[in-house]
């Protein structure tokens, strides 16, 4: 149960074995994907044909490596572009929301809070569809009325960003609120008392205090944006983020390049996760 309560060795070992098996289960598919990034074969599956770096650095079709695959490189940039915007928007709105919900009392606060949680429980595809339909109607009406074109209301990166933001903002709000709740208001009052202006106190004291949560929320937002598929699928236009490109590839013409990209992605995510952990661990 807990370390101070003795258990039979059999139980202890079974338990450990179970936990080990669990982690093997978690690691297995990813490990397989990584290993096959080095398979010297045109297909990302058995049999094993030997080791090669081609799927990273190959320059000749069909053995074109990730680094030389223009569409893949471009979609990575697209994903990064989307992720950065989603992170900026989510964290900004998450921060103001945190201040609103933690610091203020107003009518319908509870109702608004539940509404704010709702995106967590709306299936991603529905979020995507509803935004698609609404923006489509809006665009049609605007275009009928003005005779101008409103391309940013049509599927494309702006909508993808908004679609992802619509639910990632909830995560950011929760992460940042949790930290703000732990903030001792008297720190801000102390700053006022020492001569800081109200905004100055928030800037000098509260925001630095929130920094680990803001950094954490940024990382979470970037990771979630990078991996989002369902919502993006419905809103994507001509510039496809990486997951969508990979999905298309999976339908037509997959090679171990997909594994290679995945491997790179894992390395990047791991690095990002570590950085955020270090940031969070720095002060708590």
């Amino acid at each position, binding site marked *: 149960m807990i370390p101070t309560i003795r258990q039979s060795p059999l139980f202890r070992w079974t338990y450990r074995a179970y936990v080990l098996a669990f982690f093997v289960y978690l690691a297995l598919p990813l490990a397989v994907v990584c290993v096959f990034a080095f398979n010297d074969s045109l297909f990302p599956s058995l049999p094993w044909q030997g080791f090669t770096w081609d799927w990273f650095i190959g320059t000749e079709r069909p053995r074109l490596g990730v680094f030389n695959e223009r569409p893949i490189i471009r979609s990575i940039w697209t994903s990064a572009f989307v992720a950065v915007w989603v992170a900026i928007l989510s964290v900004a709105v998450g921060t103001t929301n945190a201040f609103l919900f933690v610091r203020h009392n107003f009518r319908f606060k509870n109702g608004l809070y539940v509404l704010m949680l709702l995106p967590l429980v709306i299936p991603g595809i529905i979020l995507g569809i509803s935004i698609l339909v609404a923006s489509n109607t809006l665009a049609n009406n605007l275009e009928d009325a003005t005779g101008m074109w409103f391309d940013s209301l049509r599927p494309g990166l702006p909508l993808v960003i908004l679609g992802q933001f619509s639910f990632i903002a909830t995560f950011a709000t929760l992460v940042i609120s949790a930290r703000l709740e732990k903030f001792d208001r*008297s*720190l801000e009052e102390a*700053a006022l*008392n*020492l*001569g800081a202006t109200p905004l100055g106190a928030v800037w000098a004291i509260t925001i*630095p205090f929130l920094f680990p949560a803001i950094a954490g929320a940024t990382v979470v937002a970037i990771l979630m944006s990078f991996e989002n598929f369902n919502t993006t699928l419905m809103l994507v236009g001509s510039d496809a983020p990486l997951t969508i490109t990979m999905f298309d590839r999976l339908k037509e013409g997959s090679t171990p390049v997909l594994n290679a990209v995945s491997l790179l992605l894992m390395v990047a995510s791991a690095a990002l996760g570590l950085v955020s952990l270090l940031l969070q661990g720095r002060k708590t």
Partner: protein
Amino acid sequence: MAEAVNDLDCRDISKNFAAFKAVRDVTFSVPPGTFFSILGPSGCGKTTLLRMIAGFLEPTSGDLLIKGRSMLDVPPNKRPVSMVFQHLALFPMMNVGANIGFGLRRRGVAKAEIAKRVEAVLERVGLPGAGPRGVDELSGGQKQRVAIARCMVLEPDVLLLDEPLGALDLKLREHMKIELKQLQWEFNTTFVYITHDQSEALVMSDQIAVMNHGVFEQVGTARDLYYNPETAFVAGFVGESNRFAGKVEEAGGGTLKVRTPSGLPLMGTAAAGSLAVGDAVDVFVRPEAVRLSPTSEGVAGQPNVSSGLVDSVLFNGANSRVLIRDAATGGEIDVALPQTGEFHSLKRDDPIHIGWDTAQTLCFAAAGEGS
């Protein structure tokens, strides 16, 4: 109202939270250099009052002057007062030096000057060279001193302290009581200190205001409050007391005869106002005012006498007590054991006689409030 300018004047200050009156028409003045404490039970409005002085709450009515200047329209960051918060509110993201320099930076003092002043104040609080240390690396007592240094570096007219010792452990608290008093002496700044711990207030203060339900019940020196409480609340809240309810049977010449419901006759003094025959009264007797004697002769000369069995002996070194179950009333009486060690062999169920003086038997009109 004071001739010389006071550091702080509160005039009929009140604060209502919706219908609830947290502070009611409180008026007091603090002359320069005073250690002024506000003592009262939890929820009596101490923090509310202090936060009005600091500017974090607007008074519902009344005026508030610092050095003779009204503060009502001055925002907190412009008032010449500094505050030490209950949990100190040191900025965890800054080191000690940055914490102390914060206020100076806000005032736009030059960097080199800030460094100089920070080091100077650190020296005064006994932490020379602690500037680069992290706040988390400090002990509780050191944090306390940094919090005070952070305020003192701004040379405030008044330093406000909201139960700053509340979070410390027992031993450290004892120690810091003395240290705080010493720091105040050294800086010679006006301190307004709030606490619900009477021993803190008694030990440190020049003046103490006892607060209850939003009003000041009495303002005076520690001795005034202890020996001459003006209200039953003060008598009960400041120091330990045995408390009896009763009715005045005879009144005359400043001496009252009171009888408790169980029939015990008590000779006492009217502590405040005048009391007439038939008035319901609360009577207070301090444990150390009661004399013990193994025989009835030993207390024969006392105006108040009684006897009973020892219920328990609470040995606590110099502060030992004995709880005596009064034979006549069945009530429990708390008596301090003499520091001489004379009665240290008392045990449960030993018979004992007690007696005490009229002057130390304070009677107040019954109100039903107290600690």
